[in-house]
């Protein structure tokens, strides 16, 4: 397939080995290895506080790793951060525009600070504004922009100095579904037009599906890495979810009579089975506990995450320790 050809045929633009980031009494990143090929859209998926932002910050030279090495565009991020930065574009999790300046002025600022040659400045700014459909509003102050427009402007800005890799940290966070969808359309167009490598983090499972390859990260470690299809194949076959008025009883019966261990998720029972067509009739026949509803579907990345970590990715009510971790990484991320 296209993906295979791309991966075999080109070199790695990001290489990380054994990355660790320790803060006083917490280890945000605990040994991460990964390789991203030229032209890929690589997704970094995990719940809040899993270490996504910390890892991306190390790769972008914003944080120095406590251990391990990383090369971005062939350059060591610790030894030569300035040269790495000249070759990467960044879109941060938190907004970083000057909203008293116009869209165009924000881009001009960036072009200057990244030493875009004077003869190229205007041309590239026009091109990026057009590509992200901001031309009409380019002369309005950014504070009058919508959330989606601000994000697009940040993406345009990140591309101005023609980076080889565009890093996006939760680029669609806080945007409505339609806007999220359109950001993805723009990112795909950008890749088609500029052939850029995109490295992004997200905690939206549906977005990860747009990626060529995904690393699932949990508690500072990569727990799975592959194409969305490969990852979904880790969940055997189909996903069957039932609800019952006597959940405990039903769970015990399923385990005993059908030889499948159901996972509890929000009051329902979820199980992975090789073939739902055969399984569901058996389930209904053999269960004495009442079954109220049955749903079956193809596995999603949510299921993959649930299988690998035993909890759903959108469990925002995660343990206090996880929350602390999330707070710490968010806070420390903001400091630099």
């Amino acid at each position, binding site marked *: 397939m296209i993906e295979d050809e791309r991966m075999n045929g080109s070199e790695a633009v990001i290489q990380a080995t054994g990355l660790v980031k320790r803060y006083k009494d917490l280890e945000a990143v605990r040994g991460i290895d990964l390789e991203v090929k030229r032209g890929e859209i690589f997704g970094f998926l995990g719940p809040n506080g899993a270490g996504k932002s910390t890892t991306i910050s190390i790769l972008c030279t*914003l944080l120095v790793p406590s251990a391990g090495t990383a090369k971005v565009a062939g350059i060591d991020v610790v030894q030569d951060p*300035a040269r790495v930065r000249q070759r990467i574009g960044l879109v941060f999790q938190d907004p*970083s525009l000057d909203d008293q300046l116009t869209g165009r002025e924000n881009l001009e600022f*960036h072009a200057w*600070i990244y030493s875009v040659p004077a003869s190229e400045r205007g041309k590239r700014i026009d091109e990026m504004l057009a590509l992200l459909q901001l031309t009409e509003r380019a002369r309005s102050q950014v504070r009058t922009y919508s959330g989606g427009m601000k994000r697009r402007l940040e993406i345009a800005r990140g591309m101005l100095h*023609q980076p080889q890799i565009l890093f996006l940290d939760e680029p669609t966070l806080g945007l409505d579904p339609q806007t999220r969808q359109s950001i993805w359309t723009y990112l795909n167009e950008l890749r088609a037009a500029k052939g850029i490598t995109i490295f992004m983090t997200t905690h939206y499972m549906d977005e990860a599906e747009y990626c060529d390859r995904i690393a699932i990260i949990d508690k500072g470690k990569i727990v799975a890495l592959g194409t969305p299809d490969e990852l979904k194949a880790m969940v055997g076959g189909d996903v069957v979810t039932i609800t019952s008025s006597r959940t405990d009883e039903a769970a015990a019966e399923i385990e005993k009579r059908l030889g499948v261990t159901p996972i509890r998720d929000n009051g329902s029972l979820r199980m992975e089975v090789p073939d739902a067509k055969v399984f569901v009739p058996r389930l209904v026949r053999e269960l004495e506990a009442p079954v109220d509803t049955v749903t079956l579907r193809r596995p999603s990345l949510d299921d993959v995450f649930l299988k690998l970590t035993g909890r759903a990715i959108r469990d925002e009510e995660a343990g206090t320790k996880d929350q602390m971790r999330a707070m710490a990484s968010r806070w420390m991320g903001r400091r*630099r």
Partner: protein
Amino acid sequence: MTAKAVAPETVLATPALEAVDTRLASLRAIYIIWYRDILRYWRDRWRLVASLAQPLLFLIVFGSGLSSALGRGSLFGSAGGFTYIQFMYPGIIGMAILFTAIFGAMSIVWDREFGFLKEVLVAPIDRSAVAIGKALGSTTQAMIQGLILLVLAPFVGVKLNLLTVIELIPLAAVLAFGLSSFGVALASSMKSLQGFQVVMNFLMMPMFFLSGALFPLTNLPGWMTVLTRIDPASYGIDPLRRVVLSDSGRSSALVDRFALTINGQVLAVPLEAGIVLAFGAVMLGIAVMMFQRRD
């Protein structure tokens, strides 16, 4: 397919990057950081107007009030001498410079809070450019803010000629630079807006009160004399006053009665300017060091 189309372009882009001269890049960065500050300053007309309101209030209310209270028997109001308003006027110019410079430099804290600082800090430039650009940006703003007040001279009975004005420009610039650099150094270590109030109450106000803007720094209690001589703003405001009042047709001995002294010696204006400049340079050095630290 996409991958193939791409590779040549990215390969071509790489060698050009190597040619980027880092010193030139720093200069460009300093320029654009400075320019952004000026742009925002112009755009925010209300701030310009509002920042003139305070000096005016001081001059009109505070100045007039004290002028009549200080009538006879003091340094002011004697026949042929200066009135309190005339004395205070250059001090108010200094005040405008002091507040604008430090507030301007502290806008770094806002930039940090609202995320923009990140865009600057991740750029492939030497971070010293950030501190220098910001210091020069507030220097320019503060200088303009102070010099605008010169239009009030006729209203307070101070005569100025072109030469005096030309002489005042570098003096205002030096004071603005010293205080802006101080502001940048403070802001570089400040992570939140909370610290701002502290700086305001415990640094800016004392600096203003002790600077000689409102009263002559002579015949003060010993402890206060020491504090006023530590205050860098004193060395910036004193030259402003001596130059502003120099063209009043009165003897220089009369002007020197207010002058800043150390051990009874009146300091020369260039020496004072040099002290402020040196202070600014040290502060800027500290700011640069603070910015170059990396987590």
